[in-house]
Structure formats: C-alpha cells, structure tokens
C-alpha cells in the first residue's frame, strides 16, 4: 500500500485552479464534421455549462496524435483576439492529463484567466487509434513489431495482459467482471454508446481480437469531443456551477514493452508515480470516493487498482470479484461506462465524468456524497508515459 507523507513535494498550486464547465458532443460512428467543428461544439457546450461565452476565452490546450485540429485554428474560430496561453500536447491516452495540468498552471500563475481544454477526434470515421501505433513516426521502436504485423493497440496490450494475468492469477472472468460492471454503469448514462447490459456468457462468447483479449475487453472507437473550462478557483466560485478544483496532478513513465529499462513490464509507470500524486494532493487512496481509470482495455483496470494503492499488488482480482468497483461498492470506477462502454475520448471523458460526479450531477449513476475523485491516463504500460489528476468538490 502507498504510504502518504513520506515524500516531500511542495504543491503551491493545490486547488488554485478549478474546472468550471464541461461539454460533450454526441458520440457517433461518423460525426460528419471536421475535428475543428467537434472541438468548437464541445468547447461551446463547456462554456455554456460554466455560464461563460467564447469572448471569455484567453487560452487553449489540447492533446492529439496527428489526428486532430491545430489549437491555433480553434482559438481563431472562437474569436480569441489576444491569445495568452497555448498548449498543444503530442500524445494519446498517455498524455491526456497534460493539457489540463498546463491549463491549471496557466490560470494559477496568472498567464491566462480562462483556458479551454479539449480532445476532439473522428476516431471511427477518420484516424483510428487502433492503427495509429503502426505509424513509425509515433515510435522509433515500432520497427521491431511492424514486420510481425504486431503494432496495433489490442495486440500490444494483449502482450502485456498475458504477463500480468499470469503473474497474479487473474482470470478471463475477472476481466469480464470489469466489462460487465462498466456496462451496467453505462446503462445509467444516456450519453454512452453501449448501454445494453451484458452477461458473463456475452463476455466469454465475444470474439477474440488478440488473445488473451476479446472484443468486450476493448474500448469503443468513435467520433466525439469533450471540453473543459479551467479558471481560477476564486473566479469559478462566481460562476454557474459548483467548482471542482484541481487538487494535484502527477506524471510518470518512461518504459516500453520491449526495452532494457525494467525486467518486469507488469509494473507500470503509474506504480512509481502514484505516491507522488497522493503526496502532492495531501491525501491518500482511502480518501478517493470514485476513480475514472483509463480503460482502453480491461486489464488496465486491475493494474491501476493496484498501482494507485486501492489494494495490494495481486489483489485486484479479489477486489473486483467482491464487487468493490461497481456503483454502490467501496470504490466505484468508470461510473460513465468508461472507454469500454461510454466511448473513447482518450481519457478526457473520464475527467469530465469525474467533474460531473463531484458536482452531484450524475442522476441515477451518482456516487452519493462524492467529494474526491481520481482520473487517470494510460498507466504507461506499452507507450511510456502516464499521468493522473485528483479533483475535489469545492468546499
């Protein structure tokens, strides 16, 4: 388990910035519009949610993988006359916390007053992430996998998954319980793409993609955008919604699946990072009310339950079997259905859901009295980077 207080990390920005609004576009298989239009729609929705307009925006931040609009074009389309802050992060799910962190720093230091953060992708009708890892420009080490036609995300995570499952005795049924729990959550989420409840028979009967991963171990591929409005906590208090403060962020990683960097690839970047995150937040895993865990594939959920100290290493299967991660359990996870069932907006829809939960705006799927939430990036299993944020309902 993670001991808090052993690491000395000053965090002068703790709770200085807040998320004042969230916006989503529809999730679809074919948006029929550009990623610029998707981004603008999500940003406008987030601004309306906050009670602000595009004239209030003076900063923009996003992450993308050569698959989405240039943030300068978004700023231009929003009519920002004096753009005070820009952050254009290269990366997918591993990097999803970085633009939010940059926005929080910008408003906390006074570089900007109102930064919009988004992820916009035509991930189904346009550039599919499942194939993006095949792009040699994205990783020099793709050359060692491509000749075997083994560079897609499901294949790479399947290679990790078998090692991880073997090491801790995790079964297919344990992964199935993750998929089933998240689908049950999605059934309560009108936004989710996949809302029909599934059974263990459905899970075990779903077709193989790359063993040991089945179709129902894999996330959706869709067109969508999600946006957040980040401003100072002081200013957010005067806006329309209950502010959700950015208590702490942390980043980590650096390993690849095939590299002489670590002898046990089942230990992720998140394992090393989590203690720093909690130290920066000044709280521990026991104080987290819900966790939105990056779930491109089911095995990442048990891995992160362990990495973030919600159970000991090797005990996530037990925790999942006990029902701890379902709504009503001790640590509800992916309350919107996650990437598996709500949709895939590269981690940013997880942050948006955490905000809605902390505002107590989640209706039937609301975690009662939620005060503190964790939202994570890909834990740094295959691609090397990770990150996470701890959010709080403003007192």
């Amino acid at each position, binding site marked *: 388990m993670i001991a808090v207080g052993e690491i000395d990390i000053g965090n002068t920005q703790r709770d200085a910035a807040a998320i004042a609004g969230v916006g989503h576009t529809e999730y679809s298989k074919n948006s029929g519009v550009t990623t610029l239009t998707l981004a603008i729609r999500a940003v406008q929705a987030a601004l309306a949610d906050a009670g602000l307009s595009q004239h209030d925006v003076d900063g923009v931040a996003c992450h993308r993988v050569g698959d989405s609009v240039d943030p300068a074009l978004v700023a231009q389309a929003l009519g920002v006359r004096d753009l005070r802050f820009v952050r254009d992060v290269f990366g997918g799910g591993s990097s999803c916390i970085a633009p939010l962190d940059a926005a929080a720093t910008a408003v906390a230091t006074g570089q900007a007053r109102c930064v919009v953060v988004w992820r916009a992708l035509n991930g189904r009708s346009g550039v599919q992430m499942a194939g993006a890892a095949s792009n040699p420009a994205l990783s020099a080490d793709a*050359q060692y996998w491509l000749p075997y036609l083994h560079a897609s995300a499901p294949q790479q995570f399947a290679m990790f998954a078998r090692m991880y499952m073997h090491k801790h005795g995790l079964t297919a049924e344990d992964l199935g319980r993750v998929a089933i729990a998240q689908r049950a959550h999605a059934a309560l989420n009108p936004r989710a793409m996949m809302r029909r409840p599934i059974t263990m028979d459905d899970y075990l009967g779903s077709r193989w993609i790359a*063993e040991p991963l089945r179709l129902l171990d894999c996330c959706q591929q869709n067109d969508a955008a999600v946006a957040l409005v980040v401003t100072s906590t002081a200013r957010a208090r005067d806006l329309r919604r209950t502010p959700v403060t950015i208590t702490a962020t942390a980043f980590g990683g650096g390993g690849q699946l*095939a590299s*002489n960097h670590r002898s046990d690839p089942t230990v992720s970047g998140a394992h090393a990072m989590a203690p720093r995150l909690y130290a920066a937040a000044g709280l521990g895993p026991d104080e987290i009310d819900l966790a939105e865990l990056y779930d491109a594939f089911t095995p990442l959920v048990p891995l992160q339950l362990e990495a973030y100290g919600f159970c000991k290493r090797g005990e996530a299967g037990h925790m999942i079997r006990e029902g701890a991660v379902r709504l009503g359990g001790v640590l509800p996870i992916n309350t919107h259905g996650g990437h598996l069932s709500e949709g895939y907006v590269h981690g940013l829809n997880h942050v948006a859901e955490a905000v809605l939960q902390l505002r107590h705006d989640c209706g039937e799927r609301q975690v009662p009295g939620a005060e503190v939430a964790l939202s994570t990036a890909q834990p740094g299993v295959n691609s090397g980077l990770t990150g996470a944020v701890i959010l709080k309902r403003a007192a």
Partner: protein
Amino acid sequence: MSTRPYPVTDLDSSPWWEALQRREFVLQSCAPCRRLRWPARAMCNDCGSDEWTWVSASGVGAVASWTVTHRPGPAGGETFVVVLVRLDDQDDILVPGYFDGPPDGAGLTIGLPVEVGFDEVEAGDDGRRLTVLRWRRAALRGGGPGSVRE
C-alpha cells in the same frame, strides 16, 4: 491478408537489422559497465557512456508472453502467433518474434525455453526480402530457463 511493412530503421538500429539479414542476432554491450542493450541506442541508460560494441547474443531465452492475433497474417490463415522472449543474457531484454509452432499458440507456456531462429519473408509493396526472428522450442540444455549465460 495484410501486406507486411518493411521496417523503417534509423541510424541507431540499422546495424542490428543488417546483422539480422546475415542471420546474426546481436546486442550492444556497453564498454565501461558491460551492460547489454536492445533496442539499439547511442548511449547507455545505466552509466551514460557512448562507448559500446556489438556482441553476439546467446540466442537463448524464455517465453515472457505471447499473443494470438485473430486475423490473417501475411501468409494467410485465421490466426498468427507473436512471442515476446526474455533473453537469458540479461533479464530486462525482451525481444518479439514469430514462434515456430501452431498458429493457435498450442504448446506455448510462460517460461518455455526457446532459442533464436530466423525466417526470410517478403516485406513492403515491392516484396523485398527481410530476415525476421522466429523463435523455436529450445533443445534440452543445462541450467534451465532463466540461467544466465556469459
């Protein structure tokens, strides 16, 4: 069936690929600290030295993981297997490759001792010849899986 791409090598890695075309399986060895290195890099991530030589790997290791991809490979069929092998030479070097076995992965276990083999395939739109790794079940050897070879 999918076309197998020809690997985009770089200035660090091209000698490794050239060795592979000669059916040699090599690693970098750091001159001061003797740490082995793969994939190829210009500097040691342990001691930081940029002095190193290529050395022949033992070519033996153990299966760390494998996948069975359920779509046709370049040779057709319904599935194909890719293994990740942990080298006996140094336990943090994991190298992917094909496996000389059935396309459904039957008989594979984690820890299975394997030895290196090579396979000539066609890659790229112009069908250039490329040598890739094809690991095979090891002949009986002393020391057992995980033993370190000098």
